[in-house]
C-alpha cells in the first residue's frame, strides 16, 4: 500500500468529516427505531417523533416555523425544488415567466434556471456582479418586474467565498411580493441565519457541509409561498416532497446543524484568524497570485486564489501528491478542464480562471497545517509554471 504520510485536508467547502457526536445520535435510527414515519404502529410513531423533533430544532435555529421546513436529499435537490417549484407555481398562478438570478450561482441553481429557460420557455435575466462576485441590491430593485417569478442570489459563494447582502435583497423582493430564494449551502455552516430578519422566502441547506451526513438537506419555504412538488408520491412533507423519510439522516442533519450553529462564534473566530494568515502568506510568498472574492466579506473558512500561468488542475494533483487536498473552480477529473463560470463572471480571463485554487478550512485545521501548506505551495506553483 501507499506510503502513509500525513495528509492535510483543506477542502471543507466540498465536504466535511462527520462529527462523532452526530454519528452517535444517528445510530439508533438504523436498526432499532427503523419504522416508516408514515406507519400507524408505534415503531412508525417513534420515527415520526424524531423527524418532527429534528424539524423543530432546525426551524428554531433559523427563526422559522417547523411547518416551513422541508427535508430533501441535499442542497442540490433543495435548489431544484426552490427554483423549479416556485417557477412552475408562479407561472400557473400568475403567468410569471421571468427569472432573476446572479451569474455566480452554484450549478444546482444555474442549471435549474437554464433548464426552465431552454425547455420550458422561461426568461433568465442575470444580475450584474462586481469583481468580488457581489450583487448590488439596487441592481435587483431596478430589475424586478410584475412577471418576475423568482429571484435567487447565493448567500456565501462556494467558489470565491463572497457573502452577499441577503437582507437588503430580501427586503426589496418582499416589498414587491416577489419570492426570494438563497442558496445557503455554504453559509449555513458558518453564519447565523434568520429568515425573518433577512426576509428570505426560500433557503437551501445541505448537511454534509457542516459535519453532518451526505444525502440530506433542507429547503425552508416561507408560509404563503406556493411551490409545485418536483417529486410526487405520498403525502410526506406537506405534499411537497414525497418519499419515505430518511430518519437517521434527518436526525443527524438536525444535530449537526444544532452543534454548528451553537458553536458558530468560536469556530468562526478561530478559522478567520487562520484564513487571514493563509491569505496573507499566499499573496506574499507566491508571485502572480491574486485573491478571488471579497477580502473581508467572505466565509470565515474560505480562501481562493488564481495564479498567473498555472493550470489549476495540475496544481491540485501536485498538492495532492504532496499531501494536501484542495479544490479549484474548474475541478475536473476527466482531463478536459473548462474555466469556471463564476470566475469568468467576476471578470477574469479564461486563462487566468484556469489557474484557480480553493483552500477551505474546518474545525480540525491548525495553524501548523497552514504553515506546512505555505511551505510547499510556492515551489509547486513554480513547477506548474515550468510545465506550461
Amino acid at each position, binding site marked *: *500500500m*501507499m*506510503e502513509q504520510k500525513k495528509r492535510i485536508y483543506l477542502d471543507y467547502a466540498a465536504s466535511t468529516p462527520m462529527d462523532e457526536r452526530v454519528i452517535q445520535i444517528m445510530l439508533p435510527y438504523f436498526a432499532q427505531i427503523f419504522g416508516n414515519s408514515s406507519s400507524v404502529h408505534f415503531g412508525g410513531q417513534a420515527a415520526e417523533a424524531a423527524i418532527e423533533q429534528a424539524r423543530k430544532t432546525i426551524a428554531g435555529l433559523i427563526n422559522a416555523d417547523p411547518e416551513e421546513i422541508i427535508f430533501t436529499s441535499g442542497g442540490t435537490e433543495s435548489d431544484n425544488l426552490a427554483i423549479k417549484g416556485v417557477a412552475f407555481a408562479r407561472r400557473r398562478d400568475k403567468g410569471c415567466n421571468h427569472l432573476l438570478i446572479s451569474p455566480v450561482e452554484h450549478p444546482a441553481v444555474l442549471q435549474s434556471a437554464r433548464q426552465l429557460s431552454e425547455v420550458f420557455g422561461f426568461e433568465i435575466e442575470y444580475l450584474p456582479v462586481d469583481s468580488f462576485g457581489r450583487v448590488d441590491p439596487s441592481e435587483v430593485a431596478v430589475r424586478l418586474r410584475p412577471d418576475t417569478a423568482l429571484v435567487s442570489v447565493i448567500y456565501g459563494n462556494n467558489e470565491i467565498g463572497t457573502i452577499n447582502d441577503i437582507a437588503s435583497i430580501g427586503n426589496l423582493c418582499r416589498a414587491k411580493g416577489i419570492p426570494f430564494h438563497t442558496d445557503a449551502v455554504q453559509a449555513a455552516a458558518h453564519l447565523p441565519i434568520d429568515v425573518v430578519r433577512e426576509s428570505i422566502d426560500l433557503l437551501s441547506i445541505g448537511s454534509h457541509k457542516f459535519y453532518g451526513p451526505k444525502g440530506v438537506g433542507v429547503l425552508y419555504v416561507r408560509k404563503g409561498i406556493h411551490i409545485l412538488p418536483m417529486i410526487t408520491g405520498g403525502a410526506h412533507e406537506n405534499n411537497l416532497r414525497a418519499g419515505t423519510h430518511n430518519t437517521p439522516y434527518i436526525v443527524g442533519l438536525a444535530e449537526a446543524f444544532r452543534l454548528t450553529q451553537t458553536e458558530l462564534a468560536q469556530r468562526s473566530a478561530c478559522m478567520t484568524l487562520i484564513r487571514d494568515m493563509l491569505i496573507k502568506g499566499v499573496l506574499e510568498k507566491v508571485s502572480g497570485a491574486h485573491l478571488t472574492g471579497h477580502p473581508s466579506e467572505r466565509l470565515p473558512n474560505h480562501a481562493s486564489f488564481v495564479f498567473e500561468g498555472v*493550470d489549476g*488542475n*495540475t496544481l491540485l*494533483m*501536485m498538492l*495532492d*501528491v*504532496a499531501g494536501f487536498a484542495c479544490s479549484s473552480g474548474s475541478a475536473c*477529473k*476527466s*482531463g*478536459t*478542464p473548462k474555466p469556471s463560470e463564476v470566475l469568468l463572471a467576476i471578470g477574469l480571463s479564461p486563462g487566468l480562471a484556469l489557474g484557480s485554487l480553493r483552500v477551505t478550512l474546518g474545525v480540525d485545521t491548525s495553524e501548523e497545517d497552514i504553515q506546512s501548506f505555505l511551505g510547499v505551495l510556492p515551489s509547486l506553483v513554480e*513547477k*506548474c509554471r*515550468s*510545465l506550461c
Partner: protein
Amino acid sequence: MNSLPLVAVAMSGGVDSSVAAALLLEQGYPLVGLMLRLWSEPGCEDNNRCCTPDAVAQARQVAAILGIPFYVIDSRDVFYSRIVGMFLEGHRVGITPNPCLACNQFIRWGFLLEYAKAMGASYLATGHYARLQKTSDGKIELLRGIDLEKDQSYVLSRLNQEQLSQTFLPLGNLEKKQVRAYASNIRLPVAERKDSQDLCFLGGANYRDFLKRHAPDLLQPGPILSSQGERLGTHEGLAFFTIGQRRGLGISSGKPLFVLEKDVSRNALIVGGGEELGRKELIAGQMNWISGMAPGKVFRGQVKIRYKARSVNATIFLIDHQKTRIKFDVALRDITPGQVAVIYNEDMVIGSGIIETSREAYI
C-alpha cells in the same frame, strides 16, 4: 518509513498497466497513476482508443483497488501540435509517419515524464512488454520482452539513455498469460481493449477521411505511372496511398497492380506488378542508438520495418552517426518511408531510424 522513490505509472485501465502498477506496489514503491488525455477529433472524443471515458473509469477503478491516487492529465494541446501536426506534415512531404512511436518519444517520455517529475516522481513505469538491463558501465540496454508474441520493444526504440534510465518496465520478464493470471489472482479487472492498428486520434475514422478534413491541401491530383513511365490513370493525392497498396487505385489492368513508390517531385504514384514490389535496401535517418553510439561502421543485425513485421537479417552500413544504409538478405515488399526501422542484435535493440527511401540493392 518508505525510502523507495515515488513512481508514476502510466495507466490505461487495461490489464497490462494495471499489473505493472500492482507489481511495483508489491515491491514497496509508492505510486501515482497517471493517464494522458490526448487530443481527439472534435466529436470523436469518446472513440479515442487511448483515453475513452470507459478507459478512464476502468483505470480509476484499478487505482482504487490498488489504493493509489490517479490523475488524468490534459495533454491535448501538446499532443495535437507535436503528434497530429507531425502526422499531417509527414503526409505533406509524401511519407507515412508513425505517430505512436513519436508519441512515446515526445509525449509519454517527454511531456508525461516531465509532469511526473514535477509531481515528485523519480521514475515512469508502463505496462510494455520489453526489458531494461543495466550494464556494468551504467548504460541501460533495451531488450525484447520475454514473451516474444507480445514484445513491444519496437515502440520504445526511439527512447534515449536519459529516458530509459528513468523508466521501469515491470512486465518485461513475464508472459502475457502470467500477467493475466496475476491480475485475476489479486482480483484486478482483466478487461482489454481490442488490439487495433488504428491511430488513437482517428477515433475510428478512416485515416484518408481524416487527412481530407484536416489537410485538404493534400488533395492534389496527379498521374499514376508505371515503372516505365507510362501513364495509367489519375490519383487524388499521394497521401491517400501507401507503399504496397493494391486496392483503390481506380485503374483496370490485366494483372494486379501495387503502389511501388510515391514520387513527390512529380506528384506521381508509381505502380507495378507484384514482382516489382520487393526492395532489398533502405536508407534510414534520425538514427537513435540506444547505447548512444553505433556498434560499428558495418555490422550484422535483424531489422523490423513495422511493429508487426518479422525481423529480417540485414547488414547495416553506417553513413554517418545520423544515417544508415540497411541491406536486407531478402527483398521486402512494404518498406515505407516515414515508418521506423528498428535494428536488433538478437534480443537487444541496437537502434532505430526513420525510413527515408528504399531502393534496389546495387552492391
